[in-house]
């Protein structure tokens, strides 16, 4: 494995070099490509089908979220964060709300915390399901996609019943929740847990021991734990490389301290391990949900937060374990109603940086597999 620090840039600007060597081929993958999960553009330099190096061109979905934040009040900006990682909108909302709460020195009441955890973990499952479906589709197994979408639908139904939105939920408010859990929420969640458990087994039945799946994922896109840390890669990718690190355990937020769950790790850091880690994570999320849904305390759902929020001058960095890795918010307040600066530390953006390292000396088909296994959402990469 190459040290990521020694990776040289592609020198795409040097046409002579690429022209003279007849074996080398420069291929442009994307931004309109079925397997780049959005508008990611990857410039591949190939020797036959072997990848000599690649360069990601991003920003096609850049909406200037951080600039928008500076022109909105704290409350007004809340829905925007849902639009970054739109398949895990609830996690984004949780991170932002907690960061602002920290700035305001308030804490959401316990009941709100429990509901937050349930929804966030549901969202983690939904995100992983979407990842699994599209990842398998990239590798050529078209069926799991429909299974996962079928089951993700149940999660989205719960979201819809809870807050009226399915994808960009805007489920949380700074200081707690806007909506009380609807009647039958707990029953729905419990039903979902018992519904989805056999379904996860079903996905595994299709893939885990499938010979072609093993051949396509084992030893593909290997990244060591050391390289992961150097590249700032977090989330399931880091854990699959054998680093047992989950912010829910390391720097607990919300009330994750109260729940009992395992942090799965892999050993080889290849695509297969990442797959296994995510599968186990889904099961662990179910475990958290089971614990949480049984113990939702009574009480208020909203802390005392002023209508017009003017956090005191200061800055705060708060991060949570989003389905894709460490999602951080660095918020600077100047004491006014609008944040002076909001910086989002997007896990997809940082993880995507590892693509070059993971794909070198692999084949074109592996690039697709690795893009899939990194689980990027371009809305978050580009913001």
């Amino acid at each position, binding site marked *: 494995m190459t040290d*990521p*620090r020694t990776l*040289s*840039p592609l020198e795409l600007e040097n046409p002579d070099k690429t022209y003279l060597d007849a074996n080398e081929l420069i291929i442009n993958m994307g931004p309109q490509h079925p397997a780049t999960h959005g508008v990611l553009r990857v410039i591949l330099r190939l020797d036959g089908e072997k990848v000599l190096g690649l360069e990601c061109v*991003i*920003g096609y979905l*850049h909406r*200037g979220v*951080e*600039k928008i934040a*500076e*022109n909105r009040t704290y409350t007004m900006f809340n829905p925007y964060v849902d639009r970054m990682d739109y398949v895990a909108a609830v996690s984004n909302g949780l991170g932002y709300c907690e960061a602002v709460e*920290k*700035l305001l*020195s308030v804490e959401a009441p316990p009941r709100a915390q429990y509901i937050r955890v349930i929804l966030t973990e549901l969202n983690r499952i939904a995100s992983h399901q979407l990842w699994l479906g599209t990842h398998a589709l990239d590798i050529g197994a078209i069926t799991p996609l429909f299974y996962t979408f079928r089951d993700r639908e149940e999660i989205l139904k719960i979201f819809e019943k809870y807050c009226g939105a399915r994808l960009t939920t805007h489920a949380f408010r700074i200081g707690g929740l806007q909506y009380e859990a609807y009647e039958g929420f707990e029953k729905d969640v419990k039903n979902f847990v018992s519904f989805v458990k056999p379904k996860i087994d079903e996905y595994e039945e299709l893939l885990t021991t499938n010979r072609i799946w093993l051949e396509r994922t084992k030893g593909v896109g290997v990244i060591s734990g050391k390289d992961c*840390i*150097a*590249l*700032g*890669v977090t989330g399931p990718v880091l854990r699959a490389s054998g*680093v047992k*690190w989950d912010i829910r355990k*390391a*720097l607990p937020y919300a009330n994750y301290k109260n729940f009992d769950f395992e942090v799965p790790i892999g050993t080889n850091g290849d695509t297969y391990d990442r797959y296994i880690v995510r599968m186990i994570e889904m099961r662990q999320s179910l475990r958290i949900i089971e614990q949480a849904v049984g113990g939702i305390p009574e009480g208020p759902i909203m802390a005392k937060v002023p209508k017009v929020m*003017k*956090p*005191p*001058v*200061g*800055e*705060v*960095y708060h*991060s949570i374990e989003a389905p894709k890795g*460490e999602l*951080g918010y*660095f918020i*600077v*307040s*100047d*004491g*006014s109603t609008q944040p*002076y*600066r909001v*910086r989002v*530390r997007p896990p997809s*953006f*940082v993880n995507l*940086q590892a693509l070059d390292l993971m794909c070198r000396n692999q084949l074109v088909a592996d690039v697709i597999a690795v893009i899939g296994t990194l689980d990027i959402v371009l809305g978050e990469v*580009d*913001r």
Partner: protein
Amino acid sequence: MPDETKSPSTPLPEGEPKPTAGQPATPGAVKATPSGSVQSEIKAPSEKPSPTQVPKAAAPAAAKPATPAAGHPAPPKPAGPVPTPWESPMISKLKRTYGSGIEALAHLGQNYMTVDRSLLPEILQVLRDEEQFDYCVDLTAVHYPKREKQFDVVWVLYSFPRNERIRVKTLIADGDTLPSSVPLWTTTNWLEREVYDMFGIKFEGHPDLKRILLPDGWKGFPLRKDYGILQQDNEWVQINLGIESGQ
């Protein structure tokens, strides 16, 4: 990536101080667009320090208030927690070595240190190698146009062995460069590119410093406070659609 492609080619309008020769584009120049008369949202500071003096002239401890927004007019004061000194063996060790170049504070339960620009490369190196901050979580900047040293550049570092997260902050003036931390943490490659893209802060020794999120030919640096959204919109509409913007 040659800097010229990004700096505006049009002459600066009247009333703006000319950037020092040889200096890269300044935030003030951002407004130097064909429709230069359109006001940006926040006026650029009229006085600009000569960047060459900065490293020496800025006595680090000199009135570097803990709160970053100190350069601003005092906002309506909400009562809030105030930063307290951050004390730890690591800090005392660092302070012993580097003296007053470091100011370490804790605010809202989070530790951060403000480091003088000249000490920065060394301290980052020490933090990574000796203090085991092996994971650079994030690198970003904040722009305070009214301040003498306009930018806060913030490293968020995390240590796996210590399970500790800190922030390292340094203040630099516009046009100042920073040493690239890519040799320390590879992850800062894209993060530095993004900071460059959004703030125009250059990192020396970066392998491939070019815009990352915005197109290569973009003018100005959007996350600077004096970057005029309206003006940019007007210009774009005029060039591409040939009409007046409705904004």
